[in-house]
């Protein structure tokens, strides 16, 4: 026989709690205990409320450009829940829910989008990296972070989040290739939300799934319903087990949808059909969990009302903390340039502080007298 099959594969899609609220009890057994499910539901609701408030803050001029997370809460949250607290979370910029669950105070995210760099001063013990603004670059950092853990003989792994568009960047290829060939325990968590700003997924990938991109690197690939918190948790748990025990990377494609605009600077009505958005609103990750909780008699209207009140209270407080923070020192942006500020940068800093020109130190001591020569 001149031809024989040397390789074939398939991608499996995992769904446990589907968009109609139907729960697969067999697959879903022991994935999330009831008490935790309530916590995760509350977390998603809080995050959604913050998202709505952030949008209003931007519209009323109290915050800069902001990327809404709406519709994608289950992806990063499921991952953060399934992973150990010491595993690295390496986000792009639509992972608020997972970051908050890990312990990032909400005002950090608000500060970041309010143009305040203190929002990036993430406590080291949270094991998360700051939001990555360029697309796809953080996947290499995740690979390095996980590599360091492997080097030190620790059981820590890394999970990096990115979108469908990021798989088009060269850095994705390089990260996947490094991780696979050097046996790095990193999870590549692709949140396929179908849109890279206005560009549809088919411009990023012509294959039937994004998940299969990982196959070419020789890593295990999984696809799950990204709006199904159970499916996300189980998928990440399985991936983490592979990463931790075999020191191998895993590629996850979580199928989700960006219900909002790309950012507040975008208007998605220009390029996508409302019918598509409406369809995905039915698949909202929060709605189906609430329905399940109600079905299990774990939730009712009074609990919902109490949660709404809590969300209002907590987010109002977070916004107040972000808005009431003392303004940054004027020269703050000099302070972290190097471990030690060199003399030229010190001169430039003093120049700025005194509105002088900095060529002549005497100007700095006495800026008012500087023009007499």
């Amino acid at each position, binding site marked *: 026989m001149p031809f024989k099959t040397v390789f074939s594969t398939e991608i499996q899609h995992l769904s446990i709690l589907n968009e109609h609220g139907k729960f697969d009890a067999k697959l879903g057994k022991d994935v999330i205990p009831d008490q935790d499910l309530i916590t995760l539901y509350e977390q998603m609701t809080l995050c959604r409320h913050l998202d709505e408030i952030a949008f209003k803050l931007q519209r009323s001029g109290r915050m*800069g450009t902001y990327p809404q997370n709406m519709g994608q809460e289950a992806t990063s949250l499921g991952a953060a829940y399934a992973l150990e607290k010491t595993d690295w979370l390496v986000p792009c910029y639509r992972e608020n829910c997972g970051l908050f669950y890990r312990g990032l105070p909400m005002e950090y995210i608000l500060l970041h989008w309010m143009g305040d760099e203190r929002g990036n001063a993430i406590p080291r013990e949270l094991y998360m990296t700051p939001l990555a*603004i*360029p697309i796809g670059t953080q996947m290499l950092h995740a690979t390095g972070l996980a590599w360091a853990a492997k080097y030190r003989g620790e059981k820590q792994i890394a999970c990096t989040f990115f979108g469908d568009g990021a798989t088009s960047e060269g850095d994705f290829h390089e990260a996947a290739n490094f991780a696979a060939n050097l046996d790095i325990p990193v999870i590549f968590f692709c949140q396929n939300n179908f849109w890279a*700003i206005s*560009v549809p997924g088919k411009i990023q990938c012509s294959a039937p799934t994004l998940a299969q991109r990982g196959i070419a690197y020789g890593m295990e690939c999984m696809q799950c319903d990204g709006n199904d918190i159970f499916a996300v948790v189980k998928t990440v748990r399985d991936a983490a087990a592979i990463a931790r025990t075999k020191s191998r990377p895993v590629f996850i494609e979580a199928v989700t949808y960006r219900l909002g605009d790309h950012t507040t600077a975008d208007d998605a009505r*220009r390029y996508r059909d409302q019918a598509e958005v409406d369809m995905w609103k039915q698949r909202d990750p929060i709605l189906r969990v609430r329905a399940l909780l109600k079905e299990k008699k774990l939730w009712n209207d009074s609990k919902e009302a109490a949660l709404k009140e809590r969300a209002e209270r907590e987010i109002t407080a977070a916004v107040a903390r972000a808005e009431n923070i003392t303004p940054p020192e004027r020269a703050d942006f000099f302070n972290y340039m190097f471990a030690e500020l060199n003399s030229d940068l010190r001169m430039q800093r003093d120049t700025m502080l005194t509105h002088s*020109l900095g*060529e002549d130190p005497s100007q700095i001591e006495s800026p008012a007298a500087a023009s007499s020569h």
Partner: protein
Amino acid sequence: MANLTLVQAINLALVQEMEKDDRVIILGEDVGPNGGVFRVTEGLHKRFGAARVVDSPLAESGIIGTSIGLAMAGLRPVPEIQFDGFLGPAYDQICSHAARMRTRTRGAFTVPLTIRIPVGGGIHAPELHSDSPEAIYAHTPGLKVVMPSSPYDAKGLLISAIRDPDPVMFFEPKRIYRAFREEVPEDEYTLPIGKARTVCEGDDLTIVSWGASVVQCMQAIEKSGKSIELIDLRTIYPFDMDAVEASVKKTGRCVIVHEAPKTCGFGAEIAARIMERCFLYLEAPVQRVTGFDTIMPYYKLELEYMPDTARIERAIADIGAY
């Protein structure tokens, strides 16, 4: 004549060049039906179709690398990189290939390519959306670097860039995309790459600037009440040293203003050339008013970073009184 913003003037230049020459195609992230994130390519997808206004995969190296191939095959691609801070992945293609192709093939291949990039701060944008990288590319032999400061200049310079036989970095100061309007002829016209514009004439002092800073310089000059000559470089490389020389020899004093960091900013090159050509005419040291050698701060502090009218006025006063 139409009263246009800088965005509209660029859009008009693109329309006219695309109508005139079917070798001109546009590619980039969101440039298609969405018309680009700043709406510079608004309406072009509808007008010229998906084959000529191409939404590309999200990959800056890919956008520029394929544009090089398109250009080598004789087309005139006008790729857009969405923001200054996203030039990073494309750097290798721009500097290792676009800039060098003519030289390394002894002219057998050329890269007539115009890369459009919104640049600069002052619009409350997120991180990596406010940088001023013109000196990096001016320092790369084989690239032309253009930065208009007005709608009229933008149209004429962009048409010249598209028709130029070599790669052009076309930096668009996003702070003045819609800051003001100007009469722009409907008819096509070109402005020469490498020629400065004397914005206003004066005898006491010369200011050299480019991009959005030109607007601040005009305000500072007005406030100073002095007779100041303002030269808008318009193209950073090649640059019009003859115009700078003539002006500085006349005034004897020079202030250079740019938003990019000070060290190795393009002001350093201008200052050095003034030393070479005008040393004996100088009444005062050349003074620079620039951004600082820091990471461009997030927007809460961006105005502390940027050279504002007050700092320019200070330089005018100091150098004028020297």
